């Protein structure tokens, strides 16, 4: 098997690496780029712990081949906090205690951010459907949903004209 040379933009930075063609994007992120925030819960698209943005679309990085990202843009959980400032979702997750073991959290945060970028005023039902591809063994989801809805409320407040 010959390795493939991949050039892409990850969290705004140009990256360049070699990988086997069968490597998943998730493994490339974790093993080649040392971005270990994205987790592997299942490797089969069921749990969402590996959620990342690929050219502004929410995807499971375990179901993307690394060679597919050549020339494209990827955003991971590592890109959520900016200049040492937590993203409002991250702050609200802490405030609401919306995590226990934290294994699902990176994927949930990336997915929730994608939701709020499309719709800053989602209903609880819309939020639950949107996050249906993110499994959590610990929280029972309720605090996750509350944290997301509370973040949405805060973001709407910020957008009100002064």
């Amino acid at each position, binding site marked *: 098997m010959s390795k493939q040379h991949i050039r892409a933009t990850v969290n705004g930075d140009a990256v360049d690496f070699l990988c086997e*063609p069968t490597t998943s994007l998730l493994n490339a992120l974790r093993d080649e780029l040392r971005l270990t925030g994205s987790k592997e819960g299942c490797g089969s698209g069921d749990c969402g712990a590996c959620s990342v943005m690929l050219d502004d679309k929410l995807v499971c990085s375990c179901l993307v081949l690394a060679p597919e990202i050549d020339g494209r843009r990827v955003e991971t959980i590592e890109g959520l906090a900016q200049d040492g400032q937590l993203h409002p979702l991250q702050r609200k997750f802490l405030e609401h205690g919306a995590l226990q073991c934290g294994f699902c959290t990176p994927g949930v945060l990336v997915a929730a951010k994608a939701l709020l970028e499309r719709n800053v005023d989602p209903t609880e039902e819309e939020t639950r459907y949107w996050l249906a591809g993110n499994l959590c063994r610990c929280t029972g989801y309720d605090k996750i949903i509350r944290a997301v809805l509370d973040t949405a409320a805060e973001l709407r407040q910020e957008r009100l004209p002064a």
Partner: protein
Amino acid sequence: MSYHSPTSVDQAVELLASRDDARPMSGGTDLLVQMRSGRLKPGAIVDIKGIDRAVGSRAQDGGFVIGAATPCTELLDDAALCAAWPGVVEAANLIGSVQVRNRATIGGNLCNASPAADSVPALIAAGARAVVAGPQGERIVAVEDLLAGPGWTTLGKGEFVLEFILPVREPGSADAYLRSIPRTEMDIAVVGAGINLSCDASGTITAARVALGAVAPTALLVPDAGAALIGSKLDEAALTAMGEAAKAACRPIDDKRGTIDYRIAMSAVYARRAAVIAYNRSRETL
């Protein structure tokens, strides 16, 4: 294994025909899972998303063409398509989660050939045809004629599905798809029902196609069920006759999601519910 991302149909056909273990890939949501589990070991993956015609949807000759490798969620952005073929679009957008639908395609859903594939009954009911590209050029095939059995299609060596053609829409026509699943999201259909019908200004049904999923080795077109609706205004007698025809066509399996008896009974229930939705939608277009 090697990964290829051809940008032309000819390149893709050449790559696929060059070795027996080459596989087309669209969204990869079935293929990569099957590779990981060891069920499939392709020697070459031919990613068709780089081919212009394989992605996006467009109006053509009064109908629509959908690239076989268009992610299901992208269909939602085509307002004209959603208005003309709401059942096809809703069926494709019942698949998996947002993450999965941003990758999964109707081409992959069809060619994976799961008996429970959600978009397939909707495509069959719609009378969708597939444009198949291969070493002999292109041919156009009815979607139902591409299905051979669980996991098997009638595609030949070097062939892949490039596009789907949805027919011209007359006023008074609409489609719908419904499935029964044990959960509300992220599960596999126990029964799926796709209905496409047309009615005249008085509300009398003039044409109808009924297709069922998850009740036989492949998705089924049930001509008798469609025929039972024609000439009616979707009254109880017509719905009952359609339901009986649907049940008579079922050859399901028993598994943890549903027994044979349950699937057969539910095929009539879901076909009826989908028919009511399609009928109400068709009336709105008059």
